[in-house]
């Protein structure tokens, strides 16, 4: 497919000024889920997944990730003129999560705020919008967050991977950034691979349709178009981050694109904590920034059902080192864990037990 003219570039060069991550400490062993539903544990895709604590939701988790991003830099709150939260697990059906986040961070009232909706691509959509806001000159800084406490039907195959976590990215002018955005694009079609109606608790998915026609088609086309536009190959990138629904999909996607295991390893988090939906690719990018060096080039491609991918080329600047100032890294959060093997407690933490 020809990819000419698909690249999106801003009027002013934009970069990642700072970033922060959050993963809850609770992990449920997937063997406990398998045991409840009579499934063989050898067929479970990952060993454990992250689960929100009883007092956590997408708002509280977004706040901690954003606070981590703001702690890494010294930026006056009045300079941050936009807060966008991408998620498919909003605490309220009607009331923005983003205003709660902005209020706690002390960014209100003169700030643009909204919640983004695009399944697992909602977080990278927030990033694209933040890049545009800064790149057009509308805002000195804009905050984009991808965060989820992913929901899954009890007994469904998604229950083994639907996890909790995400990351926040503060975008600003490239001259002051820790990593510069070289270019981005979006690739979107109306693909019915995953959906939920207004009064349903859990989304339905299209079984095998979620693979080739959905995840692989969009991730491959977006990434290849970006590489074509920039005249690059996978060898030009030290690191690559993709949306991570399960380990098998990510390994196959990387292989088909020509990226090696060592290129995806730092941001490959699904085997450790599961699929954090709108937070998945953003959390992977945060994990790469935790270890990247100046000059490293990062390929980033998200995927969201419904369906689409955002692909970005990012190059690290020497300012990234200054962000390593004691704020918890992604691996700090992953290392902090309390494992549970009790399906009943898992149901309680996921707020699936309702009392009159």
């Amino acid at each position: 497919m020809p990819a000419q003219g698909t690249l999106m570039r801003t009027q002013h060069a934009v970069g990642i000024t700072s970033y922060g991550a959050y993963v809850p400490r609770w992990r449920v062993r997937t063997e406990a889920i398998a045991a409840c539903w009579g499934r063989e544990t050898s067929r479970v895709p990952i060993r454990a997944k992250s689960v929100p604590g009883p007092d956590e939701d997408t708002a509280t988790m977004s706040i901690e990730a954003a606070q981590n991003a703001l702690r890494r830099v010294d930026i006056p709150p009045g300079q941050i003129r936009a807060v966008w939260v991408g998620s498919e697990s909003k605490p309220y059906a009607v009331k923005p999560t983003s205003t709660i986040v902005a209020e706690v961070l002390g960014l209100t009232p003169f700030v643009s705020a909204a919640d983004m909706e695009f399944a697992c691509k909602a977080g990278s959509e927030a990033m694209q919008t933040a890049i545009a806001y800064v790149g057009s000159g509308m805002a000195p800084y804009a905050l984009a967050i991808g965060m989820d406490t992913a929901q899954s039907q009890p007994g469904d195959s998604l229950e083994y991977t639907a996890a909790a976590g995400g990351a926040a990215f503060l975008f600003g002018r490239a001259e002051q950034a820790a990593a510069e955005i070289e270019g981005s694009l979006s690739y979107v079609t109306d693909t019915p691979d995953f959906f939920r109606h207004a009064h349903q608790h859990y989304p339905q998915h299209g079984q095998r349709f979620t693979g080739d026609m959905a995840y692989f088609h969009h991730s491959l086309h977006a990434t290849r178009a970006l590489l074509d536009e920039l005249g690059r190959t996978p060898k030009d990138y030290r690191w690559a981050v993709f949306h991570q629904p399960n380990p098998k999909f990510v390994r196959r996607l990387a292989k088909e694109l020509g990226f090696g295991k060592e290129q995806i390893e730092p941001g490959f988090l699904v085997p450790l904590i599961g699929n954090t939906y709108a937070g998945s690719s953003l959390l992977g990018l945060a994990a790469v920034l935790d270890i990247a060096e100046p000059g490293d080039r990062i390929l980033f491609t998200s995927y969201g059902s419904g369906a689409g991918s955002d692909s970005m080329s990012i190059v690290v600047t020497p300012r990234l080192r200054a962000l390593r100032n004691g704020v918890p890294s992604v691996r700090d959060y992953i290392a902090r864990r309390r494992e549970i093997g009790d399906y009943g407690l898992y149901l309680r933490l996921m707020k699936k037990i309702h009392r009159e």
Partner: protein
Amino acid sequence: MNLPRYRRLQPAFYRLQAARCTACRQVHFPSRTRCLGCGSASMEPVRLSGQGRVLSFARMLHAARGFQDSVGSLTALIELREGVRLVAQLTDVEPDGIGIGQEVEMVLRRLRSDAEQGLIVYGYKFRPVLKRQAGAQAQS
């Protein structure tokens, strides 16, 4: 919690916003319009660090309505770096994981468990200071 009260308490609940006397510099939390130390009515808002230590703690075994999910959790008397003392729920910790003098930090969490129909009340809780990257120090 009724809506006007929650709206008024947001600066304290969300950001640990206190009041500092511009005359004698004493800090009050919750905020006051007049200083308890010198009687001055000249107060300014100040954001507390959220860093402190546990002076005492107790385990909640019977919960009031709206706090049923907190049964078994810990509530602590905490002294912040600024000298302010407050009572708050602890989170992300088991009863055998806390002790007198333990360093804690503020996090924002859901306070009540009866929010399925009404307002979700967010506010401060404290947890043991998160372990950071080796050799790095936490910032306030």
